[in-house]
């Protein structure tokens, strides 16, 4: 695989050159003192940051339902965010035409909820990969920390030199504008492929006790980048009855815990996002009750994607398993 060695000044000129054109914007991270967060750059990419060591939301959610053609967008985000974007293009929730997505090697993130002292954020991107800081569960068990998804990737080798590597034609066109020659990239990188984890196993009692605190605020659904239905089944009275509908149901069936339908809500959502879940942990981050949702959503989605040898967000041309089939498969599906 070929790529170009990068210096920070290269990136500055790449981004500023990109933003010079009319109607072009960059979605990335902005550093403001010791605060880093998602930012949309227009005009100039001053104070951009390639790495954000804190996770608050999955950036793919901001451009969901983007259908305009002609606009030029550059995404410089974490691998999990780019993977969610890839899934959304397959679900026709994002028009891919004007977008170039660059994934950046991710050292893992801390939760934005943790009130850590941010007095000393490293100035240099390399230092993020050296320190051993507190990471979220989702990041410790991440399936793909490498910037190998999207149109191009920014990766670090063992000596912490930056490389930019094109994966698609769009990426190649963007990288052409950079100075320097395409050379073979080193095999040893700062971040190596992740080990496979055992398949997830639990039972309903564990789920029930974890969901005891759930208040059905549905923040997990709203912040999930790939939970995209405009008309969600949980809007309205069909699945989660309230008022008269609840009264009728309780009279018909019997006593129930409140809020009613917690397991129903999470199990259905778990199934609906099973093939597209990227395991970013945005649901857990959005949960006001600190329920360990990532454990379930990530575990189930990896198990279910495993049946079809699928990995969410790995490539643009892999179809989502539920939307396609092979005639000669799953011989033992019938009971």
């Amino acid at each position, binding site marked *: 695989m070929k790529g170009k060695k990068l210096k920070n000044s290269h990136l500055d000129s790449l981004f500023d050159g990109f933003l010079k054109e009319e109607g072009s914007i960059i979605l990335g991270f902005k550093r403001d003192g010791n605060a880093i967060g998602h930012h949309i750059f227009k005009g100039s990419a001053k104070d951009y940051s390639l790495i954000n060591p804190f996770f608050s939301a999955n950036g793919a959610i901001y451009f969901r339902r983007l259908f305009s053609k002609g606009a030029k967008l550059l995404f410089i985000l974490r691998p999990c965010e780019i993977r969610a974007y890839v899934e959304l293009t397959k679900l026709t929730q994002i028009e891919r035409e004007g977008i170039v997505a660059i994934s950046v090697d991710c050292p893992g993130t801390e939760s934005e909820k943790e009130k850590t002292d941010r007095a000393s954020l490293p100035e240099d991107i390399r230092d993020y990969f050296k320190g051993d800081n507190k990471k979220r569960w989702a990041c410790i068990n991440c399936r793909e920390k490498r910037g190998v998804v999207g149109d191009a990737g920014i990766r670090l080798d063992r000596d912490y030199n930056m490389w930019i590597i094109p994966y698609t034609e769009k990426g190649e066109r963007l990288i052409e504008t950079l100075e320097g020659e395409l050379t073979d990239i080193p095999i040893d990188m700062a971040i190596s492929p992740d080990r496979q984890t055992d*398949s*997830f*196993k*639990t*039972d*309903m009692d564990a*789920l029930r006790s974890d969901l005891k605190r759930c208040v059905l605020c549905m923040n997990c659904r709203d912040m999930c980048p790939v939970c995209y239905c405009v008309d969600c*089944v949980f809007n309205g009275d069909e*699945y989660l009855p309230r008022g008269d509908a609840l009264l009728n149901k309780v009279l018909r*069936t*019997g*006593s*129930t815990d409140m809020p*009613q*339908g917690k*397991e*129903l809500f999470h*199990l*259905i959502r*778990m*199934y*609906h996002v*099973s*093939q597209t879940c990227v395991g970013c942990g945005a649901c857990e981050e959005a949960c006001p009750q600190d329920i360990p949702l990532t454990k379930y959503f990530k*575990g*189930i989605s990896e*198990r*279910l994607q495993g*049946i*079809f040898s699928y990995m969410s967000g790995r490539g643009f041309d892999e179809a989502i*398993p*539920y939307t396609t*089939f092979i*005639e000669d*498969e*799953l011989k033992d*599906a*019938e*009971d």
Partner: protein
Amino acid sequence: MAEGNKETPEIIGFACSFCSFKASEMAGSLRMKYPEGVKLIEVPCSSRVDPAFIIKALMEGADGVFVAGCHPGDCHFIKGNYYTRRKIAALKEMFRAFSIDEKLRLFWVSASEARRFVDKVTDMYNNIKETKR
């Protein structure tokens, strides 16, 4: 809402109107018996069954759910049951992770296989009755 303390299990079946539901009608006209606890819901194709229906049925008190469709390759809509197969296989894998996979079954029953339908349904009913005890 786990109110499943009744004596006999209740099983919800989603049956394709072109084959499995016809098979159940044929079983009726041939005076074959299958357990009373089995409630059939006619669907235009087995792929009409969103796994959300199955989860909802189970969470609201059903002891078991089955989905019955045409044999692969015989779908009235050409390829509907191939999608069903993928969806239900994945759902069963999810139930396996939660150790409740005995509550879901997938059958292929064509319109003429009344005997097969009755056998499969009765077998499922007896199994669930056994585990309930």
